């Protein structure tokens, strides 16, 4: 009764759907390889006539991308560090107990997860101004963005800790480990992969952080790559091959990490995102 060609037909349709969906990415790369006149060809060419990569070094130096990308890396690393250090312990405790306090804690974390950054940025800016934190703008952005990233991290990592069998930790306690010892030598190593995936997700999302950096960091020497991109992007931009080359330099590392870790990221999300 089975019709053997149907799975292959479905595969073909799936590939076609993926091609349509990923077309914007393809268009970014193709545009960045076109010459300045070819991008305005009418009708547009779907494959560049002569591949011209000279825009890449040009954009890199003209837009001082090494400064922007370094700042992005610093900010993302800071956010990830704070989120992992504070969030892991919190997620562990929330996974370990089942009582009304844990429910309240989870509820408030879910509530914090939903606050839009555009809502938080006004009070944070005014408060940072009053406490003088605006003199250390990157630190201020790291603190603000870490608070934004942590709830999501806690929810996902909590799901990972739920999969660590309680018996292993109890056995370690019976064998004379302290709680601290059992946490660091038993529970953490077992949950390491899940925590790592969530940390990478946190890093990737804060690598693209925009609104806090745009509002808080005034000096171009301290701004991340997202703000650098917004500097020459607007409704009237015409410099499209530079913009696309800048975007390509910016996202290619993220895309590479994603493709490498795709399976783990997807399974990490599916286990935790709805719980």
């Amino acid at each position: 009764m089975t019709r053997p060609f149907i799975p292959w037909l479905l595969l073909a349709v799936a590939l076609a759907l993926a091609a349509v969906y990923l077309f914007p990415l393809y268009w970014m790369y193709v545009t960045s390889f076109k010459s300045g006149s070819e991008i305005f060809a009418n009708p547009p060419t779907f494959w560049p006539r002569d591949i011209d990569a000279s825009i890449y070094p040009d954009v890199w130096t003209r837009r001082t991308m090494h400064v922007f990308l370094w700042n992005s890396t610093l900010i993302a690393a800071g956010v990830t560090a704070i989120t992992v250090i504070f969030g892991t312990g919190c997620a562990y405790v929330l996974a370990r107990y089942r009582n009304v306090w844990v429910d309240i804690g989870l509820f408030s974390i879910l509530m914090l997860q939903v606050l839009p950054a555009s809502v938080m940025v006004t009070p944070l800016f005014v408060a940072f101004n009053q406490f003088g934190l605006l003199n250390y703008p990157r630190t201020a952005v790291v603190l603000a963005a870490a608070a934004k990233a942590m709830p999501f991290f806690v929810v996902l990592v909590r799901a990972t800790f739920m999969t660590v069998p309680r018996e292993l930790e109890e056995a370690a306690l019976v064998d004379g480990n302290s709680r601290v010892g059992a946490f660091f030598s038993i529970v953490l190593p077992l949950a390491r992969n899940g925590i790592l995936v969530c940390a990478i997700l946190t890093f990737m999302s804060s690598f693209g952080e925009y609104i806090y950096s745009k509002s808080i960091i005034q000096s171009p020497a301290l701004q991340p790559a997202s703000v650098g991109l917004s500097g020459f992007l607007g409704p009237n931009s015409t410099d499209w091959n530079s913009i696309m080359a800048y975007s390509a330099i910016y996202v290619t590392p993220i895309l590479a990490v994603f493709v490498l870790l795709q399976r783990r990221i997807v399974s990490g999300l599916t286990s935790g995102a709805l719980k």
Partner: protein
Amino acid sequence: MGRFFAGLRDGVGFDILLVTVAMIFLVAMAGLPLIYNVLMSFQQVDMFTLGSFIRPFAGIQNYIDVVRAPEFWLVTRNTVIFVFFSMAGQFVLGFALALFFAQNFPGASTIRGLFLVSWVMPGLVVGAIWSWILAGDFGVLNTILRNLGIIQSTVFWKSDPAFSIWAVVIANIWLGLAFNMLLLSVGLAAIPRDLYEAAELDGANAFQRFWTITLPMMRSTIGAVLSLGLIGTLQQFDLFPAITEGGPANTSTVAQYWSWQMSFQLYDFAKGATISVMMLVLVLFASIIYVRSTRHEVRG
């Protein structure tokens, strides 16, 4: 004192310490600013009083000013359009794709995973790419639509007041689609196979199976996905500066972008705070639905 430290090392104190550190941080960086935001919406905040905590009390004057602002109803309309159609598009297309990828064929989960690329990309880059695709004269979308015979003349997606909000909606649907699909796929995978087999034996066709099994079984997933969609669209900010900057003439400004413009372009922090408090009411409403629909999963 010794017992206190022993408790930290080897008792409930350890748990309390771990939670407290995280909670103090979150309260300082999210809880207090939230309260401060509400406070500021009732104050007069200008350049002179920006640095002090004690500011003249303004009552509900800020709220009156915001509602009376000439662009208020336009922004409200845009926000409703943006939220409703982004959610509808993300959900319907996401559901269709989730149903498709639930079929059994080689590479289904790998190809489905590729869709998630949109989710990890910086919002501003997504905005930049779509801004180029949607460009009026040289944008590729116009060319494709013309070749398909859907439009005759060029559509100026970003500069035509009738289309500017739709430009952002299209980009946002693309951005949020994959995450919706992923969550719905999880829900689909949790439905027991034998329900479908039983229904098939009883003679139910594919359409009846969808209405009587898939939809009812997915009720809590759908609730969670829709409320996360509402929260997600209200959080969406990066696409606006990248594609339209709210223009032309505010025809694509939504509440979150308006609030930011008030604070950081007009330096009217009180009004920015007021708009965000109004938005917050909406967000809290969405999150109550979200928490309700995931509650049984939270309790485990």
